[in-house]
Every structure is written in C-alpha cells, then in structure tokens.
C-alpha cells in the first residue's frame, strides 16, 4: 500500500470535516449552557450579541484571543504553554474513531474503544502538568485532586466498557453500535448506564465533581495562572471533552445512529441526525446536573468512586458474563 499525495490531502480534509463541527458545537454548547443555567435560575442568559445572543461565545473567543498571554515569572515556561495545547489536542484526536453514522468515520480501527479509553485517560496529563508548571499553590492542589479523581473514575469506566464489550464481542465502535440494532444497551444494562454518566461527569471535571477547579476553595484550580488564549484552550478542551464523552455514551448505550423504533417516520431520518439528537440529550443532562446539584466534598467523591462504583461495576461484570455464559448468548 503506497500513500500518495492525494490520499494525504483527502485525509487532512476528512480531519477538518470532523474538527470544525466539533469546535463550532463547542461554541454553541457554551451558549446553550448559559441559556440552560439562565432558564433554571429564572434569568435570561446571554441575549445581546447576535440573534438571541447566539454569537456570545464567538465574541468571548475573540476577546480571549486578543488579550495578553501572561507567563508567571517562576513557572516552567515550556510546560506551562504545552499543557493547554496537550489538553485540546487530546480532546480532538479522540474524534478520529467516533462513528457518527454507519459510513462516516475517519479511522474504523479494530480497537476503537481502547483507543478512546487511552486518550481519555491521557487527559489528566494536561491538568497535572498545568498545575505543576504554574508553580503556585492553588493550581498544584487542583492538579493533585484531579489526578486522584480521574484515575479513580477511570477504573469504573473501564469496568462499564468491559460489560458492554462482553455483550458485543468486538472492540470496534461500529460493531458496538451495530449490535444495538434491536435493543439499545441502556435497557439491559441500565445501572451501568447511570454509573457511566456519573463517571463521565467526574472524568470531564464537570459539576458536581469539578473539585480540580473548585472556585470556592482553590480560586480556579489548575488554571488559576492561565490567561487569554491558553485559558481559552482549556475551556475549549473541557467542552470538547463533554461532547466526546456524550458521544461515547451514545455509542455504548443509546444505539449510536439507530432510530428508537425501526418504523417509517423514524428510519427515514438520517443516522447523523439521530446521533446528534442523542448527544444533545446527554449534553443537556450534563448541564441539568450542573444547575441542580451542589459540589461534592472530596472524601465523598473518593468514597463514591472506590467504595460504591467499583464494587457495583465489578459485580455487574461478573453477573453479565455469568448470564451470557449460562444462557449461551456469548457473542462468537
């Protein structure tokens, strides 16, 4: 197999066709978040820039880009700049394996789910490097919290993924979606679905688990020292990660691009629309949780991760595999 120049150019175009929609939906998600929070708290939310305030996030981005980027004098300069770049990079390269419809995916690799798991577990490096390189107390505490938190919740995410894989028999994301043609995994594996959503909140450092940036005790956590576009990159990465984890939830539990019922008015709608609608639903849950729940205390967070989720998911792995083995439903 020889790579030609055209292949490479096509590849780059394909990558742009994923990255640009992700970045634009990040901007819209930030707008949506402010609108949802406003609605929950009986406010109006952004309503000045553009129609219904929809251009507010673009205005914010322009503001962030034009501001001065301040480097703290005793920081490790290279790592300080590298950390936000790494965080955004990791939240974008994960999209390479996400199948948003039956044909449309950049890399349909054998081990797609492991790739996603690996990339999401690297995410902690951006936070911990940022916290250390700032050479300041609050960011460092935020980074330490984040490292412990993300590792703890990755364990239960791993077990949830194993449970789904037991039912599918393949590590390929397209296969995972296709095996949900008849019944979505959210029905037989409902407790795992709940555990997964909660772990996603912890993995993306969203409320009620946003202890790494806990503004009540740590100023702004790991990005206290960041300003202008380097702060903007962290911000972008956080929301890109939210969309990514929502897509992963949709792929693992909500049947990807399949319509809820395989009947005429539903299956005429293209898979891409169904996928986006489901991702939107999960994202709304993220925002809804943010508006509803108070922040966890740190020991409560750790207790939830290690003493409740870990045993629960472990038992479900054993139960599922025993069930599948006993009824001879293990995929071949």
């Amino acid at each position, binding site marked *: 197999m020889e790579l030609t120049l055209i292949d490479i150019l096509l590849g780059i175009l394909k990558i742009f066709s994923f990255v640009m929609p992700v970045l634009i939906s990040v901007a819209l998600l930030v707008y949506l978040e402010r609108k949802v929070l406003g609605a929950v708290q009986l406010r109006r939310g952004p309503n000045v820039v553009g129609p219904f305030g929809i251009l507010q996030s673009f205005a914010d981005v322009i503001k962030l880009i034009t501001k001065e980027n301040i480097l703290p004098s005793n920081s490790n300069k290279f790592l300080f700049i590298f950390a936000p770049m790494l965080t955004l990079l990791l939240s974008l390269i994960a999209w390479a394996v996400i199948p948003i419809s039956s044909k449309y995916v950049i890399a349909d690799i054998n081990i797609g789910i492991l790739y996603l798991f690996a990339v999401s577990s690297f995410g902690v490096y951006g936070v911990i490097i940022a916290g250390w390189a700032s050479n300041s107390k609050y960011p460092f505490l935020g980074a330490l919290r984040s490292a412990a938190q993300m590792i703890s919740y*990755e364990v239960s995410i791993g077990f949830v993924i194993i449970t789904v894989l037991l039912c599918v028999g393949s590590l390929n994301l397209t296969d995972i979606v296709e095996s949900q043609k008849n019944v979505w995994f959210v029905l037989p594996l409902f407790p795992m679905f709940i555990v997964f959503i909660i772990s996603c909140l912890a993995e993306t450092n969203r409320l009620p688990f946003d202890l790494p940036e806990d503004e009540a005790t740590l100023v702004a956590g790991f990005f206290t020292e960041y300003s202008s576009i380097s702060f903007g990159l962290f911000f972008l990465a956080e929301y890109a990660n939210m969309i990514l984890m929502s897509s992963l939830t949709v792929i693992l539990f909500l049947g990807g691009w399949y319509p809820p019922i395989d009947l005429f008015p539903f299956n005429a709608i293209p898979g891409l629309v169904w996928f986006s609608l489901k991702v939107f639903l999960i994202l709304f849950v993220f925002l809804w949780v943010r508006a509803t729940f108070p922040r966890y205390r740190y020991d409560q967070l750790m207790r939830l991760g290690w003493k409740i989720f870990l045993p629960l998911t472990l038992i479900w792995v054993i139960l599922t595999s025993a069930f599948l083995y006993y009824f001879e439903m293990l995929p071949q």
Partner: protein
Amino acid sequence: MFVVGTFYFFAIFLIFSSLSVIFSKNPVNSVLFLVLTFLNSTFLFILIGAEFVGIILAIVYIGAVAILFLFVVMMLDIQLIDIVFSVKKYIPLAVLFALVIISEIIYLTVVKVVKGNILLEPSSINNTEAIGDVLYTKFFIDFQLSGIVLLLAMIGAIVLTHIYKPSIKRQNISHQNSVTASERVSLHNPKNGEGIDA
C-alpha cells in the same frame, strides 16, 4: 517506504527520550520523558501490527503507572533532588540488570527459537482475538500467577501505608447520615443585649 521512515522516526525518538529520562536533572522532566518513551514504544507496537498490545501498554503505563509516578515526584522538594548524586554507585546494579535482559533476549531469539504454534497465522482473526484465544487456555497458569504477584504487591502497599492510630480522626459515613437536624441545629430567640449560653 512510509512505514520504514515512520519506524526510524519513532525508534530514534524512543532512544532520545529514554536517554533523556536518565540525563534530565529535574525529576519531573524525567517522568515526562518516560511517558514519551512509553508513547513511542506504543507507536512501534502499532507499526508491527500488534495494536492491542500497543494500546494496552499506553493505557496501563501512560494512563495509570506514569501518572502515579508524576504524582509522587511532583510532591518532592525539587531543590533537594537537584543535588547531583554519584552515578558510579549504581553502575554495578545497572550492569547486572543489563546482563539479565540481554541474556533473556539472546535466549529467546538464538537458543530457543519461538515455535510456530504460538504465532498464529495472519488470517482473518485480529490480534485481540488471537491473544484472547491463548491467554486463558495455553498460558492460564502464567496468567494466574502474574495476577497473584500483582495482588501481593497491592496488599503489601496497603499494609505499608494503612496506619491505624487512635489519634487519627475518621469520618463515619453511616453515623453522619443518621444525624437528624434537631441534633445539629437548635433555634434560639435571644433577648436584645444578651447572648446565648450554649
């Protein structure tokens, strides 16, 4: 051509980053170079078509082990560590390890040529399934033994770090949850100019 070029790129980068692990003065940089080393070896595994082994290496070593290293190293006081220590002290140990590893490689490649029954034919079966087929059947004992080794290490770590002292105050969650509002909050209506004697 493309694959060969990529191989040399990653291989040279791998050697460079593993040397930097040893020669960086700042221990945090050492750990970050170690992460880079793991990442490059992941790429090399993927290049030879062993994508499962490669990505597991990334998940386990970069996603968990190296983060804990970084976690510990960051909490050390850098000024203390920066003192250049004598490398000579560790040379005999390093030579011993190097000899063991080299003799293992020679044993595996020259003396005991890997038999064809372990290597599966490159058929329709992908290498995740190929590993799954032999791991729990042919290498069952080895797999269980390595599991026991890890379990022992884990119990050892817990025993070493878990200290029970009566002076350490711990929170009892069930106790906290069973508390009612009347045990914690009492309402008073103090007269003007007088306080409350609790």
